[in-house]
């Protein structure tokens, strides 16, 4: 864009109307730091409240900014595509859930409040980064927004300030920087091939480049994204980080950055659509990563004793399923992706919320210690069973509907293209449900099948209500999936 300075300024000013939400998050980020300075340790709960209200208001801004810019804006750095508003809502919603989880956690010690200010402000920064990720239209912007998310995540991982936290944070940092490096290398190759940083321009230029280097460059770029969505073979950090980080944050990590990574992947894939349609290698790559993630996630999860590690591996498997939803490259595929992600938010937050409650009472998250819990707390037991059934993907939960949609779109892709590859993925994914059943049932198994007279786990009514609120949608969206799909269809079709 060869514009004069004043034109550029005008363009930027005009673009701001699409960035209300992001602007507000930046304000919130700074405001939280400043407010924290004036609060004594006891009063730091207020910070949570501020963040909560801030994010609630942000919902309004997201809808308002909406899809006001179809074309790239901010000098081509950002764009709003069809799914952007969905992703932003998802991040914001998950953000609110995290803050609620922080506020709902029971017995806190005085010193825990000490770092609340930093926690909340950094957390808002992650959401800001995630929002930017979904809008990025320029390699630099992609990289910057991913790093904004990553660096804040590294810091927040160690927020328990214990040995485990330090270990997890360090692992996260090391793996993260390496995969960032790989991604950056891939991006530099793309830039070298095309001379442009803007995705749409790169796609045009790539027509003159031999395919093998492009595939290598794209593959390396995707590596960084696979790291963010913890897809195999870039998943190794996941269990350690999940074990180390504060539980509310883990719930967030298992959902939001994953969704954002998928969103960036979608931006890339849609940008290079014509290239990918001709050259199936990228789809095979995605299929391979998806299959591997499902396989590794499932088989590793079977052996876990800690609930958090089990869910970490389960989240790896779920990344695979999310990738399966992308592979068909169809409207129904995207619709199933959004459905899956929405359900995934509820499933994961519900299970981590329970683990948080359990951890506070028993000190750790070993599944064996949940013995007899379902007999002493039937309601909690039933709720968690519903969540686990949903994670497995069985009726009568929306987890089943989500998987059904994903597999239906895969089948349709197979039916339209006649490619055995799609069919193989379809069958592979379906049969993995069987393995998933094995480990998800472990929690209900210990809760109901084993007796334990010394099970003293209790939940307060308010905590139970929170758990119910997260579990109920899993049933409601099974019986009425149109409530959700109607929302996507409004902007998908």
């Amino acid at each position, binding site marked *: 864009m060869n514009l004069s300075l004043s034109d550029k300024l005008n363009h930027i000013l005009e673009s701001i109307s699409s960035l209300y939400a992001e602007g507000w998050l930046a304000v919130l980020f700074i405001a939280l730091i400043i407010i924290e300075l004036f609060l004594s340790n006891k009063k730091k709960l207020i910070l949570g409240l501020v963040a909560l209200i801030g994010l609630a208001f942000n919902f309004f801004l997201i809808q308002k900014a909406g899809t006001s810019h179809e074309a790239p804006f901010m000098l081509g750095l950002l764009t709003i595509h069809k799914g952007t508003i969905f992703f932003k809502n998802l991040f914001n919603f998950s953000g609110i859930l995290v803050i609620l989880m922080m506020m709902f956690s029971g017995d806190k010690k005085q010193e825990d409040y000490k770092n609340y200010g930093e926690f909340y402000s950094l957390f808002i920064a992650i959401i800001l980064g995630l929002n930017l990720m979904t809008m990025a239209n320029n390699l630099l912007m992609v990289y910057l927004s991913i790093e904004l998310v990553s660096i804040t995540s590294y810091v927040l991982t160690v927020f328990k300030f214990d040995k485990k936290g330090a270990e997890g944070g360090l692992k996260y940092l090391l793996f993260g920087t390496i995969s960032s490096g790989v991604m950056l290398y891939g991006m530099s190759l793309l830039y070298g091939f095309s001379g442009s940083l803007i995705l749409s321009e790169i796609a045009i230029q790539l027509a003159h480049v031999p395919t093998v280097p492009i595939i290598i460059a794209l593959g390396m770029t995707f590596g960084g994204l696979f790291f963010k969505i913890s897809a195999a073979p870039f998943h190794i950090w996941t269990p350690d980080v999940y074990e180390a980080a504060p539980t509310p944050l883990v719930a967030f990590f298992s959902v939001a950055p994953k969704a954002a990574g998928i969103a960036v992947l979608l931006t890339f894939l849609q940008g290079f659509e014509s290239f990918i349609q001709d050259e199936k290698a990228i789809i095979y790559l995605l299929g391979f990563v998806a299959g591997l993630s499902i396989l590794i996630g499932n088989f590793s999860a079977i052996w876990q004793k800690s609930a958090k590690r089990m869910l970490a591996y389960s989240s790896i498997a779920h990344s695979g399923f999310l990738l399966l939803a992308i592979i068909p490259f169809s409207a129904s595929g995207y619709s199933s992706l959004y459905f899956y992600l929405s359900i995934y938010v509820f499933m994961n937050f519900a299970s981590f919320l329970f683990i948080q409650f359990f951890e506070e009472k028993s000190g750790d998250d070993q599944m064996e210690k949940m013995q007899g819990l379902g007999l002493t707390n039937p309601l909690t037991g039933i709720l968690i069973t519903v969540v686990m059934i949903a994670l497995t993907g*069985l009726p009568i939960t929306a987890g089943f509907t989500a998987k059904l949609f994903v597999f*239906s779109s895969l089948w*349709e892709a*197979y*039916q339209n293209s006649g490619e055995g590859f799609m069919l193989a993925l379809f069958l592979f994914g379906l049969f993995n*449900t*069987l393995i998933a059943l094995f480990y998800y049932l472990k929690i209900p*198994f210990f809760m109901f099948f084993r007796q334990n007279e010394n099970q003293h786990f209790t939940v307060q009514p308010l905590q139970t209500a929170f758990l119910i609120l997260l579990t109920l949608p899993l049933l409601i969206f099974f019986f009425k999936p149109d409530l959700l*799909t109607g929302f996507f269809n409004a902007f*998908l079709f």
Partner: protein
Amino acid sequence: MSESLLSLLIFVPLIAAVVILLLPKTLNGSLKWITLGTTIIQLILSILVMLKLDWSAGAPVGVNNQGNFQLVENHQWLNLDLGSLGTISIQYFLGLDGLNSTMVLLTAIVMVIGAISSFEIKDKRKGFFALFNVLSATIMGCFMALDFFLFYLFFEFMLLPMYFLIGIWGGPRREYASIKFFIYTLLGSIFILIVMIGLYTSVIDPAATAVKIGLTESVENITTENVEQVQEMLKVNQIKPENLVRTFSLISMMDAENYIPGSIFFKGEISSFFRENARLIAFLLLFIGFAIKLPAVPVHTWLPDAHVQAPTAISVVLAGILLKIGGYGILRIPYSIFPEGAIYFSWWIGLFGVIAIVYGAFVALGTHNLKKLIAYSSVSHMGFVMLGIASLTAEGINGALYQMFSHGIISAMLFLIAGVVYYRTHNLEIENYKGLISKMPVYSAMVMVAFFASLGLPGFSGFIAELFVFLGAFKSESANGLIPIWMAIVSTLGLILGAAYYLWTLQRMYLGNFWAQKDLAVDQLTDLSSRELIMFVPLAIITIVLGLFPHLLLDMISPSVNYFVNFVESTGRENLEIILQAINK
């Protein structure tokens, strides 16, 4: 109320389950009565249903025509808009015909017996009775659903209460048995799910599509011309994809005219990974899925474990009804939707039926545990169901359905028999007992009724069922050439072996002078209590009545079965010809 009679059968137990969960702890003693009351209401309702149904000659027979089902309830449940891919329609669609009405009656009867039997449950009663009621609702739903999604929902959701019922209240190895049961049947469900996804993306609902493209105002005033017009338009690709209404309705799936040209399950020439075999493969997947539930050899191994570990009431339900879902499912889904598979694979189905009959009987002969013996005798008897189905003659399928009903009643009795001993001594090893007849005469009389009924003595329902199956199997070679006569001959071996293991057990455990292994609580071995007698007597009466007056049941079944056999054979041969032509080209 009569319009929603079928729904009541599903929702009454569900409501009971909720009530049970909400009752305070102090009322725990009343839970069993609530459950019993619920099952009795269900029984009364199902008898009402039977009376409401039209059994006169020329009455609607169902099978593949929506208008011919009785007591139909059809409500739109979901209409998912998929943009350029049209809409997906899921219906709350229940209905009865000759294939499932007897199963509904059987379910109601066995659930009452199960409820009485669960009076023995002493701990965690709230959970038990709530799950029991949920189980009852899902089984009913499974038998009546005519929408694949609805069917699948009940079929798969059934596993959960069963898993917990076996896993929490079962015997020493319950944990292993329950997860094995769950994994096995889930594997079967996945096979079914694969085909379900393929089917609903291939099949349209002509009536709803007609409304969508504006041929008519609403689904209610649709005419056959409209439907034919839509099917014609579909054939020549005149309907825009966004106007197609894809459906889960089993009835729509049975009509080859409703398949979208080019979709995987469209019969005839298509290019796909499966090539032209797709429909045959789909048949096979569905068949395996249901065969696991039936269970057929070699996928039967979950059954003995589940049975031996399950509490008596659950064994009764498992053997009495759950296995029948496998047999019923085979008739309703793979046979009706992919009839060519029924022709193409009949030899193999017959073979596996024979293997099940003989193998099950041999293992039963060799086993030392009474419950295991009964479990394997179930495997053997379900083999008759498979053989009857494979013969694809009216006799054979009548026999299969009769066998399902009869075995439901008899196996309920047999597991009660095992339960009586287990409840008293917690030991079921056959060689630990001798001459029980002198201590427990009434009980032993019931044992004899059940054993003789099960081994197929004339005068009991088992005899009629097996007789019809053999008639079908022997006739098949000359009538339709599907299964060879040697299969029928070999399977008669099952009868002899059945007599052998039952009579031998009778001799070992019940006849002669009383003796029991000394570690056992011998003084506990008292004769039947009146509660137990109440369970045995009606079952014994039913099996004798059905043995003497087979027309009671056959009148209900056979009109539909005759129609079904004609439908499956004619469309099956027609489709198979097209498919084989395409393959050979």
